[in-house]
């Protein structure tokens, strides 16, 4: 079924691939004809090329843009997220302390409008405060900001029930560029939002910070346009997200706009019909939300559960050991090629390639049956071979090609291809 947005190039007519999907097509049908099934039981939000957030209805894939890499593709976050901030959009319902002033919707960020917050007291801290219900957990706090008063720094804090400050971030300004100075917690990201200017012509940024583990109970979140009581100043702010982290998370996940604060897990898969053959499985994605992804990024012949079935090839990220694996499983035995490397960080483009050859029989062969290749930000590929000779199963473990299985926090899928035979990384990039 066609549901619009076919920007496909003519390569669709001549594909050499068994499977080929390109995020730039903005399309839920692969170039080779396989239809995408996308599952997410809540609306979600994504960033357009002009840097404004838009809403995507439930069960619809999020085609989105990532400025730093210029990547355009399908955002997949296989784990559900709750925004613990109950008033995420603006500060209209936050508690006002010492009468700061607020210009509502002063900066347009699509469905999100940033407020313009002013502290005009030379003796008191004027700020906004919000009661939070916190679990005994560690949180990532993020918000969108734009130019504050250059000479004076803003501040965001999170205190738990005890009450102990678990996050204390000072927002410094160099011109219209913010930076974070942490008293408590860890700075994660200062990410420029593409092409968005506040009404005064300043750029917009999303900042994110990792808080120290909080105790369960009623906490307090505060946002101050100016940190120092004796100073005055302003700051655009909005889109506050407070999310429990997953292991290894070093960046914020996609913003959740609703006070109800839930975005269900996302799953993407295509039906496949080709039989197991010697092949190359290739994917290109931008790593979002975490320094390392753990679990299966792509699963060919995977049923979408956390257990790898017999007759399936997966590309995994192993968070504990800091490596990528290509694993073919047959008869309860896993044949693995492993490639260790420095973990790709938030916002880096990662390309993975797995070559599966039919080794045949039990005898050792000169060529390893399984090869994995990894390239980060288009750097030279590093490869590793592995596995004893593989006898391919007569059928895949399931008739599906999954993107994102298990507890992977998030990535922007640019391309996914399966070719017959063994192809190089360069061939995988250019061929369809």
């Amino acid at each position: 079924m066609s549901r619009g947005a076919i920007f496909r190039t003519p390569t669709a007519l001549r594909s050499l691939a068994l499977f080929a999907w390109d995020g730039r097509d903005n399309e839920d049908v692969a170039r080779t004809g396989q239809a995408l099934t996308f599952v997410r039981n809540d609306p979600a939000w994504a960033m357009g090329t002009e840097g404004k957030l838009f809403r995507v209805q439930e069960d619809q894939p999020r085609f989105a843009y990532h400025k730093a890499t210029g990547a355009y593709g399908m955002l997949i976050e296989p784990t559900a997220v709750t925004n613990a901030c109950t008033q995420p959009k603006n500060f209209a319902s936050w508690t006002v302390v010492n009468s700061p002033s607020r210009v509502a919707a002063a900066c347009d960020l699509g469905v999100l409008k940033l407020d313009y917050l002013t502290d005009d007291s030379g003796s008191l801290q004027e700020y906004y405060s919000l009661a939070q219900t916190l679990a005994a957990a560690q949180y990532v706090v993020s918000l969108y900001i734009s130019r504050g008063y250059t000479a004076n720094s803003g501040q965001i804090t999170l205190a738990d029930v005890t009450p102990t400050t678990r996050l204390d971030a000072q927002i410094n300004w160099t011109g219209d560029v913010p930076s974070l100075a942490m008293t408590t917690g860890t700075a994660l990201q200062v990410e420029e939002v593409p092409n968005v200017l506040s009404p005064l012509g300043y750029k917009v940024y999303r900042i994110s910070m990792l808080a120290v583990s909080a105790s369960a109970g009623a906490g307090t979140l505060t946002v101050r346009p100016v940190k120092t009581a004796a100073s005055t100043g302003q700051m655009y702010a909005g889109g506050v997200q407070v999310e429990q982290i997953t292991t290894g998370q070093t960046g914020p996940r996609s913003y959740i706009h609703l006070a109800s604060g839930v975005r269900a897990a996302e799953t993407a898969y295509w039906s496949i019909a080709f039989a197991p053959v010697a092949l190359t499985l290739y994917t290109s994605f931008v790593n979002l939300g975490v320094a390392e992804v753990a679990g299966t990024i792509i699963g060919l012949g995977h049923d979408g559960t956390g257990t790898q079935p017999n007759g399936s090839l997966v590309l995994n990220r192993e968070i504990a050991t800091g490596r990528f694996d290509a694993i073919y499983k047959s008869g309860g035995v896993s044949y693995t090629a492993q490639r260790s490397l420095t973990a790709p960080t938030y916002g880096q483009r990662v390309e993975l390639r797995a070559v599966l050859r039919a080794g045949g029989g039990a005898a050792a062969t000169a060529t390893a049956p399984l090869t994995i290749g990894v390239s980060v930000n288009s750097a030279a590929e590093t490869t590793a071979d592995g596995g004893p000779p593989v006898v391919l199963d007569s059928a895949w473990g399931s008739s599906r090609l999954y993107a994102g299985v298990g507890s992977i926090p998030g990535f922007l899928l640019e391309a996914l291809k399966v070719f017959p035979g063994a192809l190089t990384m360069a061939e995988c990039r250019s061929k369809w």
Partner: protein
Amino acid sequence: MATVYLNGEAIENYGVIVTGLTDWLDVPRTEYPVVEIPGAPGVRLVGGIAPKSSPRQMTMTCYLNTAATLAERRSKLAALALACRGLIEWSTSEDTNRACYGVLEEGAGRGIQEEALANPFALLTLRFTAHDPHWYQKVPTLLALPSGERVSLPLGSAPCRGVITINHGESGSGTVEAVLRDKTGTMLQTLTLTGVTLATDDSVVLDSINFEAWRYLAATNTWSNVTANLTTAGQDFFVFDPLDQPTLALSNGYDGSVAYRKAEQL
């Protein structure tokens, strides 16, 4: 060094050296439907008839230089000929982020039949025709359409078509409609769906590329074609023309997004 890419593959990889390329950067010839009125300066554009651009015809000359034998030369040429069958995506090293789409209409060789040693540099002339002469950005432009806002559409130097997604959003109700205006706010076109209402989490896709409209029902997780529900009067699918500096807005509290690929004349 790569010069021209055919479907993303550098043409040099087919064993040729490009020595000349013409007409790839020309402004396409465009015929405007006009009428002259004696006594009035200039001419008038005839309403209701779109200007028509002539095809872009690019000629590429190149040498085949790497074959040791005639059989090898034939093999390389066959690979190139296979790559050039059907519609081709052209891009150049000058800007690999945009592409033109056309067909190979002629591949004339000179000296190809001679043994490689006798004529090591056989000449090949390839003539491509792009019936749509415009260059398109490979990465789509994706814009938010917030509720109640007229969103300005950044365009290239040529008209293009796109796809609008309309969500129920947070406050949508009533008639589902997209409105295209020019820079002065004058309405150019509307796309209105009659008999189609959106419940929470429902959405509609207005596809001006494939001339279709689809509705997604969240309750049943199904899509249905609602093209027939577009009201008929003045309901042509949208063309975004940079001369209009257009804005796009959605009606009645709905929000959504629009995606298109910018087009350039050269």
